[in-house]
């Protein structure tokens, strides 16, 4: 599956400034692994020591918070967009 991943300002130093990258994967976990393989450093920024998403990182698949879906196991379909968004906003 070809998937678009949107990158927040804070992580664009890892993508050479790109705000969006296209990757392959059929689950969120696979997509984020592909992201770290293509642009080393992402895993350390997104995950805690135990491999779960950091408390202050929100990830959305097709605009839906993955915590309402299946977390890192959430399936990702062809052409869907994954957004990585800092959790600290709003209110």
């Amino acid at each position: 599956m070809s998937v678009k991943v949107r990158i927040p300002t804070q992580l664009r130093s890892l993508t050479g400034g790109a705000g969006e990258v296209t990757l392959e994967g059929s689950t969120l976990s696979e997509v984020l692994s592909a992201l770290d393989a293509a642009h080393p450093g992402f895993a350390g920024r997104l995950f805690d020591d135990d491999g779960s998403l950091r408390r202050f990182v929100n990830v959305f698949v097709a605009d839906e918070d993955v915590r309402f879906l299946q977390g890192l196991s959430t399936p990702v379909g062809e052409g869907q967009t994954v957004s990585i968004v800092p959790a600290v906003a709003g209110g």
Partner: protein
Amino acid sequence: MDFVTGLRCRECSRTYPAEALHVCDYCFGPLEVAYDYDAMAVTVTRERIESGPQSIWRYADLLPVTDTAPIDLRTGFTPLVRADRLAAELGLGELWIKNDTVNPTGSFKDRVVSVALTRARELGFKVAACASTGNLANSVAAHAARAGMTSVVFIPKDLELAKVVTTAVYGGYLIAVDGTYDDVNRLCAELASEHPTWAFVNVNLRTYYAEGSKTLAFEVAEQLGWQAPDHVVVPVASGSQLTKIHKGFGELHRVGLLHDEPHVRVSGAQAAGCSPVATAFADGSDAIRPVRPKTIAKSLAIGNPADGWYALETVRQSGGSFAAASDEEILEGIRLLARTEGIFAETAGGVTIACLAKLATSGVVRPDELVVAYVTGNGLKTVEALAGTTGPTATIAPTIEAFASAVEVEGGSHTT
């Protein structure tokens, strides 16, 4: 005076310059303003504050701006009123209401916006933006108009009509989004990356914005004769206001304005239809599970609260508690405050009063405590919540007979 030394990550303590940054590049933790408190303590005095303007700007020394002519609609220094009739109904002793319904645009949001946009202008921004549940929309549009800035305000499309109209009237761009507040917030967090020259007050300017809520603590302490209350009850949406009120009391002591170290118990109030933080508290959990809001308290309808974790930590460490109010309890809270104290609050104020009542009944808020309840939004903004249940006692023909047969006024037979 400027006592800001920079920004610091609340999680990993990495430091950053005092620019439009809100998130740690490394761990995504929230950035906080760092101050030179020792220098601040030398300058700031009770007399210096008391001779300042009747607004939040009397506390300028403790806020993260340098501009001596801030963007101000005359926000703050709102009434702190002794609420004996409400206290009697709830079985409490010394109870005060911080009446923040009377700010220029009718809510506490004027405090955070005045600070955020003043800082934004200092940093060179010309566009003011935000994600809002309504009160912030009003305030950003109004302050931007006053400052001659362009405003771009994003709201969920199902907001109360009054909040839509009272934002649009100031001009500027008002964008209604087909989704919940959490959808709007996610959109704005992404737009902030695409439009770095816009000041999203609660995204890239959030570090400064949040500091404005400290003035809710500063004013209460000053209005109580420079003492901290024993217990405060605060509504919780993102959780930012609650944590900053607690921080505010601590700062007053740190710079010498309160002689005794404050031990303020902080309790949080949420709507039962959107209570992710109260639920985590009740479960004894550290994980705040996001929820899909379903409540009439739309200004508190944040299902994924950015500062929920810190609000939870503050309440636990201070010995406070949480309560959650149903829609019916919220409406009764609005009516109770109105009929006992003459203050008309919006639905979020109904949440605060309903939760205060619950915490009083359960013995968490005690009659031997000096209690302050924060009522942070004006009832005229959410009149539709009461429509159908609150109206005329009777509708009559214009005759004495019709009146006499329609009602018997309690206490109305007394003559002088």
